């Protein structure tokens, strides 16, 4: 009997760490309860639509534009966050200065603040009659109520994801690695671009993925600053809410299913790249 069980459960190696069965059981049940059941509900509802209906809803111009704005702004915001998040993490890891702890704590604020508050604050600043918006308005630059405004809001909510994933890896960088590059003749720019940044790539990629995913799903802060003009600055999550309020459940379901698929594929790609680079460079286990 034991032999049979062993052949059935070959992936389960005998181990000195007990509790694999229990831990895996809990993990799977939890995943099913929290993620899989709601998502399969979504898939089931959208599959009930039938392919032609689904396609018609999916290719509706307003839906396409909303999806494009959602993913586009999230992508741009995640890119911006990667650049400035890495610099910010660098400053926090490398330098000592008065107020460092305060800045370090401030990075987490977007995690804690209700996003609607952030959205309203940003809108007040960047609206054509706001502090910053009124300075930019004469130059013909409009931020609030345009996709640029959406990017601003998403940069705000996504920043801590990049900083907090890159920071611990940066702290692990040995000073000796930089010194080694210098002894070999590398100037500062070469050391950063060829030694430090490539070493950080897996962490940066994780931070990017998290900030991007957060940006795609963000609702609270965006709806205040976006202006929500259909076809121009209307994000997909908002369109879902609008469809729901119209009792147009099939359309809401279809948009949600498309968002789910795109997000899943993108995250899968990013995670694969990241796992590959991690394995190669020997980070982590």
């Amino acid at each position, binding site marked *: 009997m034991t032999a049979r069980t062993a052949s059935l459960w070959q992936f389960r190696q005998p181990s000195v760490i007990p509790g694999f069965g229990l831990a895996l059981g809990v993990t799977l049940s939890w995943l099913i309860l929290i993620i899989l059941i709601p998502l399969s509900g979504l898939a089931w509802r959208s599959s009930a639509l039938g392919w032609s209906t689904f396609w018609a809803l999916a290719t509706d111009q307003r839906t396409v534009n909303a999806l494009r704005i959602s993913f586009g702004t999230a992508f741009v915001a995640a890119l911006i966050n990667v650049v400035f998040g890495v610099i910010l993490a660098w400053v926090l890891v490398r330098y000592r200065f008065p107020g460092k702890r305060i800045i370090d704590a401030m990075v987490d604020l977007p995690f804690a603040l209700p996003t609607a508050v952030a959205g309203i604050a940003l809108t007040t600043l960047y609206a054509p009659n706001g502090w910053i918006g009124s300075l930019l308005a004469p130059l013909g630059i409009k931020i609030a109520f345009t996709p640029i405004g959406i990017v601003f809001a998403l940069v705000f909510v996504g920043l801590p994801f990049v900083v907090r994933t890159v920071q611990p890896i940066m702290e692990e960088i*040995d000073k*000796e*690695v930089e*010194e*080694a*590059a*210098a*002894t*070999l*003749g*590398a*100037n500062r720019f*070469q050391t950063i671009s*060829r*030694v430090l940044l*490539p*070493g950080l*790539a897996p962490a940066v990629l994780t931070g990017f993925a998290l900030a991007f995913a957060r940006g795609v799903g963000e609702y609270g802060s965006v709806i205040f600053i976006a202006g929500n003009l259909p076809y121009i600055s209307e994000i997909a999550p908002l369109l879902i809410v609008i469809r729901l309020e119209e009792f147009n459940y099939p359309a809401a379901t279809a948009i949600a299913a498309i968002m789910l698929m795109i997000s899943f594929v993108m995250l899968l790609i990013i995670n694969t790249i990241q796992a590959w*680079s991690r394995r*190669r*460079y*020997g*980070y982590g286990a």
Partner: protein
Amino acid sequence: MEVRVQNIRKEFGRFPALNDVSLDIRSGELIALLGPSGSGKTTLLRLIAGLESPTEGTVYFGNEDASRKSVQQRNIGFVFQHYALFRHMTVLDNVSFGLTIRPSGRRPSKADIRQRALELLDLVQLSGLEKRYPAQLSGGQRQRVALARAMAVEPNVLLLDEPFGALDAQVRKELRRWLREIHDRTGHTTVFVTHDQDEALELADRVVVMSKGQIEQIGTPDEIYDTPNSPFVFGFIGQSNILPVRVENGQLWIADRSIGVSAQGEPDGPAQLYFRPHDIELLDGNGGCIAGLVTVTRRVAGTRHVELDIGGANSRVEIELPPEKVTSDHSRVAFRPTRWKLFRD
């Protein structure tokens, strides 16, 4: 290239790490900086490299004042204790790095760089591993990659900071012999830091013994071991016994007994007698010797270590006897140092 360190002083904050250190390193020499931790040996190495700048003093590479040059301009090879390899690069890319980052005017062609890196990997016996990443290598292999990387830039001087410190004893011994071979073959002027006296004595042409930010003695391994010129060097290198003695009319006395050692030319007065456990002769008599009772005996490889209690304060000595000489506890052993040195406070 010869390297001269002149009157270097280095302070970290107000803590002096090096105090007026001067050292001439000849071209092609393999030299060891040996000392306990905190003796300033690593600081001296980093000053030569340009990774630290001296508070005072000058470093010359040949006749050129290198002190004003940055670490990048000095063209040195530096090997770190913990390898400091670039872990996102293959072994080949690690070794090529120093050449690929040169400005285009001084950069060899891609094929030449590859050729040179492969030659170096062959020299450090890592042929066939050029596509691996550092994470896929053992500690000894990583250190050899680090050495190949440092040698790729044809450095003026090769500097190694405790290169074998993180490796286990077996690998360490192997790499030691192998480093000597590489040095003899390539002829790079090489300075390495170690706290392991065996490593320094076995490997180096000359050993620089350092303590408390100063150089205690510079000499060949023989000179350092046979004629240490300070109590510190005597105590730090190899085993030693220290006994308080008195010089009277050219004879050495312990308490009221003459120990049969003549010290002609030494002024009268108290002194410390230093001798090594194996530099002794056994005696049978009662007079003119140091005698004591055996407290502990230990067999260490090819010799027998015997601890004696010779009475009086500070009276433990250890001597080495041939293994066939069996001594029982509390038996009496008499001996006289054949090679010794006196130091006075």
